[in-house]
């Protein structure tokens, strides 16, 4: 699926949810189901530090596409991380770098992704993009 279609899908899923309680419930479930990052990556090298919660992120390149895995010690943060992975993973660096994240506002999670929430998510998204840039540069050098 194209990134834009995944986003649409997520927006629709959230539209079906009611108040914050249902959204949080959904994120908590997502958080619980996020395939844990390989223990090998749950260390300081892969850590993205927020004051409040910690996020670990890894990215692999396979056949021109990037596959992300992530984890967080806070479950709602982890749920949001899992949404971001669903959007980005399995796409090319270019697709990832050209993604507009405006949909986050539509699903009512903007505050969680503001730089003032020190939950590590903003840094995680930046880091996801840095990986994309790095792999892109690497591909071009080949």
């Amino acid at each position, binding site marked *: 699926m194209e990134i834009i279609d995944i986003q649409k899908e997520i927006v629709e899923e959230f539209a079906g949810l009611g108040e*914050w*309680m249902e959204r*949080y*419930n959904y994120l*908590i479930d997502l958080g619980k189901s996020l395939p844990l990052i390989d223990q090998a990556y749950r260390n300081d090298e892969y850590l993205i530090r927020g*004051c*409040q*919660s*910690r996020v670990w992120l890894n990215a692999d390149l396979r056949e021109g596409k990037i596959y992300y895995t992530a984890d967080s*010690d*806070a*479950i*709602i*943060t982890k749920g949001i991380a899992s949404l971001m992975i669903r959007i980005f993973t399995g796409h090319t660096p270019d697709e990832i770098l050209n993604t507009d994240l405006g949909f986050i506002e539509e699903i009512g999670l903007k505050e969680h992704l503001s730089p003032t929430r*020190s*939950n590590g998510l903003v840094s995680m998204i930046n880091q996801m993009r840095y990986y994309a840039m790095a792999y892109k540069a690497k591909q071009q050098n080949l």
Partner: protein
Amino acid sequence: MNDFPIEQIRKDFPILDQLVYGKPLAYLDNGATTQKPLRMIEAVNRLHREQNASVHRSVSFLSDKITQAYEEARTTVQKFIGASKSLQIIFTSGTTGSINLVAFSFGEGILEPGDEIIISTMEHHSNIVPWQMVCERHGARLRIIPITDEGDLDLDAYQNLFSDRTRMVAVTHVSNVLGTINPVKEIVQIAHSHRVPILLDGAQGVQHEPVNVVDLDCDFYVFSGHKIYGPTGIGILYGKEEWLERLPPYQGGGDMIDRVTFEKTTYNGLPFKFEAGTTNFIGAIGLAESLNYLTGIGLDKIIRYEHELRDYATQKLSGIKQLRMYGTSAEKAAIFSFVLEGIHPFDTGMIIDKFGVAVRTGTHCTMPLMQRFGIEGTVRASLCLYNTTDEIDRLHDALNSVIDLMA
């Protein structure tokens, strides 16, 4: 608690009367910053509208008036903490500013390589990092007072930390995480029995406990305006006159000098020697209004009420089985740090926020203390004079909802 005019007091703090996500705000983050009484708000408003002018450069009507108000504010602070002279009250930018001032000047004036400074495991970063920095600059080192599992200072260990190289003790009055009210008078006496001066970090002390610096006999006492119902950007350094005289100045600039030539500068007398540049004079006058507000209610009454809130909350929260409390000293202020088993503090905080309950989560700028307990952070509810048992009930219920939601 019937004799405490809580209804009226809540009306004095306009911010409390609002809905958050459709729920009444329960502001339980007073350890981070306190809300402002009308008396202070209106004083600042009036100063901005009618009285603003530069202080200490008085040749005009307005600047005369504001200089008087500023110096009266100094006297108000002096009386509030029982200092004997107003020149012992230095206006700074906050607790952090005050501690950096003392640490720097003490470093320049006194410290030698090999010297030691004693702090404790429960200090706020603002009472750790300035000392670390000054130790690094002067080749001195920190010695750390350990704490018990309940969150009390280990006073025997403290005694044993002194050596003939000990030059300073810096300890918090009340822990911003554990709530522990340290036995500061005894701690001061122990320091003095070793002829070592002591700084008390009163950031969480001065608004919750009676403070009389002469009685405490501490050499320095520091606190922040914004944590005692005052404006942001203003803080206090109290110091014994001998020490303030002896320490070299910290920042250089306007008003702290006597004469300046390019070859040599001589410094002004106290308190101006430590007040470089245009100070936050409106903040200082605002702070004095907040202190007058407290004095108007009666400090003993406030403290009694807060202790009642503390007992009520202790009782109530102990009913939540999954709640693990950090800080169970017999002497504590109404500050509660805890973790719900298996639930990240940040998740807890975010969810109860949706119930209108504002707390703080994280390390509370006390990472070494977190390490001591082997945790990454806590949820902290910190109460003060305008909080109610009803708000404690709401915290309690919201926490139970978190447990349900995360199950």
